[in-house]
């Protein structure tokens, strides 16, 4: 994918997420001006970025959103939940488009209708037209609608024409050929009149550019009448009007022709008049830089006229003078150089832009000043307007429009220009030029630079995740490589008999070990992220779901700043969502019932994160109806999860944990949200996958508390190495409870199961060999004792009979790849110091 697009997708995802969060927060504090401001900024930025691509659907919706935010921030309307709902809908739509773009590189045309709908809904909030929509209406009399404005409603026809065509058109215009914009809207019944609109349009004389648009959003295929013409043709032509009239003589009423100003057909990006261009001989500049030249020159003039704070005045003046020098250079005006310098010197003394402005007027005239500044600027009469009268008569009022990008320099008709002018006058900022600044004020006030330095403390780097993963892998290899040193030392001593060298290697190992550990720690730190990342979705989720269910639930998030490894935090996200949904769906009562029970009608759901030693603890607590153990038992029995015998002896505490069993659901009906009996099962699996544990506490009528314990990081696993039948295996230390030696005589046969008594309790024993399908019997040591590794899971303890225990080791566990993925007996593999592979056993499978 194009890197720019990739960047955009990443940026929009971030932005959409932030929008969601801010909207949530605004529901609590709707009057927080800062939040509104932030919201506006994000939507605005997103819209701006989307404009770089051809995603009209996306831009349309975002634009409407931006307009809405703009009125919101001006407090013309107030924030309501409905508004938030609609905005969220719109943002979901944008997210959908992003997904689509990511997967297939484009947006399906089918979204057009929906985007129009969403945009309209957003705009319907806007009571008063916005600044920029206002300029839309002010634009050359819309009633003429000669310009088929693009569906965004504000694109100037020439803007939508490719750059190359535009400069071609400009060239033709300079040669004296008239340019026209033709909009041909064939009669919808035209096919029955024997007309061929496409042919007619293509035969238009002098056509430079053409396009075909749908007049309205496409209906769906079923209702599309293929025999009606629903298209319109737009063309840019360079020819005489008379030829056009002749060409379209049979369909005159279906064609609108707009003629462009012969002198300046293409919109210059700014507002310098023709007369000024003549005065400055800009024709000496390469053509495509002329517009820029005019724009820049006019910008300097505006900058000089505008009043500014005295503090940065000198800097501003110098920058302007520098730009003027560059402009003079561009047209090869050598004589200008000393003049600009002189004017600058004078300006610096006066602390005013006036000398520079005077100089500028000397060159380009100031005819446009008279209209608006006669009352305030004495220099308006300094130099008379050059007498390029006829043209400047039209263009003059357009000069210095504050909204110049909008004001077409196409002269359409006198009346239209008039209307543009009046529109501009009203919105013209009443800035007064030539404010003279006193020196004293300037010297006050500390220089910002110094103060700014003080603020610039925290620096954050955004690093690609892949890079960190790479670091992680490298340190993993390092840990493994360092493990080779003790092995080497042992070989040096045993095999080669050089004890001295062995000691040196061991010393070296100690220092490498320390560095590697620190490094590993540092890299882990980089991977740490706050759990708030996983929590972010909850305010929205809780709000949407609880509303849907007609329940009132207040969400409290605590300890969001608690940090854990990125993988852990990410793996948290889904199980948490399941649990929150379950809690909302089954846990909380409706407000009526709550009231009847004497509980506050609004339930409270608390999600709390905290760190305990090397674990992260997540608690999800609700004050709902709790889990009824008898109900759970009955359901579990009905579903065949437990048998009659278990049903009778299972404790209440054990019973409620049955909700985590696969295929369990207590909900009477399967709801949209949960109740399919997969939720809690998924939760358990997800938590176990990252070596976490789950616990549940519940009091009927009071509520439920789910406690998830997760390791801080799962990158490095401590394993115990055991030996059986001549092979070695690793067992994760977090399930190893103890290692004991059991004499052969102490092993009893209980039915089909071996067992022993360990500290007064019966411990079931299983030979690991049996589990691994190895035929060899377990080997006792010389005292006829068996090595038993006591492992634990939530299902109790088990003693694994192995041949021998070995050391424990830090390893980076890698998941089994390709054909081995189906082997449930192993949770992964790791590299050992001597380069051999260690298989890590999945102890849970043995119970």
């Amino acid at each position, binding site marked *: 994918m194009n890197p720019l697009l990739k960047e955009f997708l990443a940026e929009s995802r971030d932005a959409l997420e932030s929008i969601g969060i801010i909207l949530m927060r605004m529901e609590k504090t709707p009057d927080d001006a800062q939040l509104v401001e932030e919201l506006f900024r994000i939507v605005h930025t997103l819209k701006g970025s989307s404009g770089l691509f051809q995603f009209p659907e996306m831009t349309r919706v975002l634009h409407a959103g931006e307009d809405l935010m703009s009125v919101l921030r001006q407090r013309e309307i107030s924030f309501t939940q409905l508004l938030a709902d609609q905005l969220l809908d719109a943002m979901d739509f944008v997210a959908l488009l992003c997904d689509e773009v990511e997967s297939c590189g484009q947006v399906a045309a089918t979204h057009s209708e929906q985007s129009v709908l969403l945009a309209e809904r957003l705009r319907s909030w806007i009571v008063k037209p916005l600044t920029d929509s206002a300029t839309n209406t002010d634009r050359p009399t819309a009633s003429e609608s000669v310009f088929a404005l693009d569906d965004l409603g504000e694109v100037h026809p020439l803007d939508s024409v490719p750059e190359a065509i535009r400069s071609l058109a400009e060239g033709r215009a300079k040669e004296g050929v008239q340019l026209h914009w033709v909009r041909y809207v064939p009669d919808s019944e035209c096919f029955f009149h024997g007309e061929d609109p496409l042919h007619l349009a293509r035969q238009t004389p002098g056509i430079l550019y053409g396009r075909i648009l749908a007049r309205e959003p496409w209906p769906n295929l079923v209702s599309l009448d293929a025999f009606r013409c629903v298209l319109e043709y737009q063309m840019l032509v360079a020819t005489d009007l008379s030829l056009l009239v002749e060409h379209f003589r049979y369909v005159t009423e279906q064609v609108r022709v707009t003629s462009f100003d012969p002198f300046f057909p293409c919109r210059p990006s700014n507002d310098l008049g023709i007369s000024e261009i003549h005065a400055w001989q800009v024709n000496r500049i390469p053509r495509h830089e002329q517009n820029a030249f005019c724009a820049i020159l006019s910008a300097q003039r505006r900058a000089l006229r505008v009043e500014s704070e005295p503090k*940065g005045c000198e800097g501003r003046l110098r920058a302007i003078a520098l730009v003027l020098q560059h402009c003079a250079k561009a047209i090869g005006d050598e004589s200008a150089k000393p003049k600009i310098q002189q004017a600058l010197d004078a300006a610096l003394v006066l602390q005013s832009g006036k000398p520079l402005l005077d100089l500028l007027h000397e060159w380009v005239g100031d005819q446009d000043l008279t209209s608006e500044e006669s009352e305030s600027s004495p220099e308006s009469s300094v130099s008379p307007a050059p007498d390029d009268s006829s043209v400047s008569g039209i263009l003059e009022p357009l000069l210095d429009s504050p909204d110049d990008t909008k004001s077409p320099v196409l002269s359409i008709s006198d009346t239209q220009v008039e209307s543009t002018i009046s529109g501009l006058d009203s919105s013209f900022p009443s800035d007064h030029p030539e404010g003279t600044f006193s020196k004293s004020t300037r010297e006050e006030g500390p220089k910002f630079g110094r103060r700014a330095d003080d603020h610039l403390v925290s620096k954050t780097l955004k690093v690609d995740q892949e890079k960190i993963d790479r670091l992680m892998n490298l340190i993993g290899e390092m840990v493994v490589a360092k493990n080779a040193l003790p092995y080497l030392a042992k070989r040096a001593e045993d095999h080669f008999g050089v004890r001295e060298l062995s000691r040196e290697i061991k010393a070296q190992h100690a220092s490498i070990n320390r560095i590697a550990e620190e490094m590993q720690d540092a890299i882990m730190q980089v991977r740490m992220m706050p759990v708030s990342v996983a929590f972010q979705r909850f305010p929205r989720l809780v709000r949407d779901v609880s509303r849907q269910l007609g329940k009132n639930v207040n969400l409290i998030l605590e300890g969001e700043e608690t940090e854990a490894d990125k993988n852990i935090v990410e793996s948290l996200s889904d199980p948490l969502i399941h649990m929150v949904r379950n809690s909302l769906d089954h846990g909380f009562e409706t407000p009526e019932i709550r009231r009847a029970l004497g509980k506050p009608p609004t339930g409270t759901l608390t999600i709390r994160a905290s760190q305990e030693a090397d674990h992260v603890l997540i608690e999800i607590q609700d004050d709902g109806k709790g889990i009824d153990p008898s109900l759970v038992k009955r359901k579990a029995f009905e579903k065949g999860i437990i048998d009659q015998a278990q049903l009778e002896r299972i404790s209440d505490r054990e019973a409620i944990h049955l909700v985590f069993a696969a295929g369990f659901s207590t909900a009477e009906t399967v709801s949209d949200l949960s109740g399919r009996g997969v939720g809690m099962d998924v939760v358990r699996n997800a938590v176990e996958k990252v070596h976490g544990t789950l616990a549940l506490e519940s009091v009927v009528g009071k509520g439920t508390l789910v406690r998830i314990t997760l390791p801080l990081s799962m990158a490095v696993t401590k394993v115990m190495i055991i030996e059986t039948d001549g092979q070695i295996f690793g067992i994760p230390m977090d399930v190893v409870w103890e290692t004991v030696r059991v004499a052969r005589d102490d092993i009893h046969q209980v039915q089909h199961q071996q067992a022993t008594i360990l500290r007064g309790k019966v411990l079931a024993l299983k030979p690991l060999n049996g589990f691994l399908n190895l035929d060899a019997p377990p080997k006792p040591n010389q005292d006829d004792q068996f090595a038993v590794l006591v492992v634990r899971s939530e299902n109790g303890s088990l003693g694994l009979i192995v041949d021998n225990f070995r050391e424990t080791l830090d390893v980076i566990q890698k998941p089994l790849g390709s054909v081995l993925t189906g082997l449930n007996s192993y949770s992964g593999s790791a590299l050992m110091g001597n380069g051999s592979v260690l298989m890590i056993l999945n102890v849970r499978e043995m119970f």
Partner: protein
Amino acid sequence: MNQNSTIGMGAPEVRLKRILIVDDAATVRMYHRQILEKAGYAVEVAINGIEALEKALQEPFDLYMVDVNMPKLDGMGFLRRLRMEDILQSPAIMVSTEAEFNDASSAFASGANDYLVKPVKPQQLLAHVRLLLGEVDA
């Protein structure tokens, strides 16, 4: 014409013109950066006014291309502070969407020398940049 074109065999070392892009939108930054870098400028970016100011104070740029609406310190604020520094008097382009330029005067008041409306077309951008940097020669 373009100074950079003199770089070559045996030519004296020519410093690339340095341009600072200040914009909070990553996509826009990248877009402008691509255009300018392809044209042979040394481009740096900053995501808000504070960061931009820090960079400018470290080593001044030949041109600043500044977005209006940014968190922490917006474009206007950045330019105002930029203009208070004696060494930072290079031209500055304000870049933003049309809606924001209803208030173009304040852009000029804060020290902008030029402004462009997003989305900026590559040719247009380069024409402005070349002129502002004094690289267009009659």
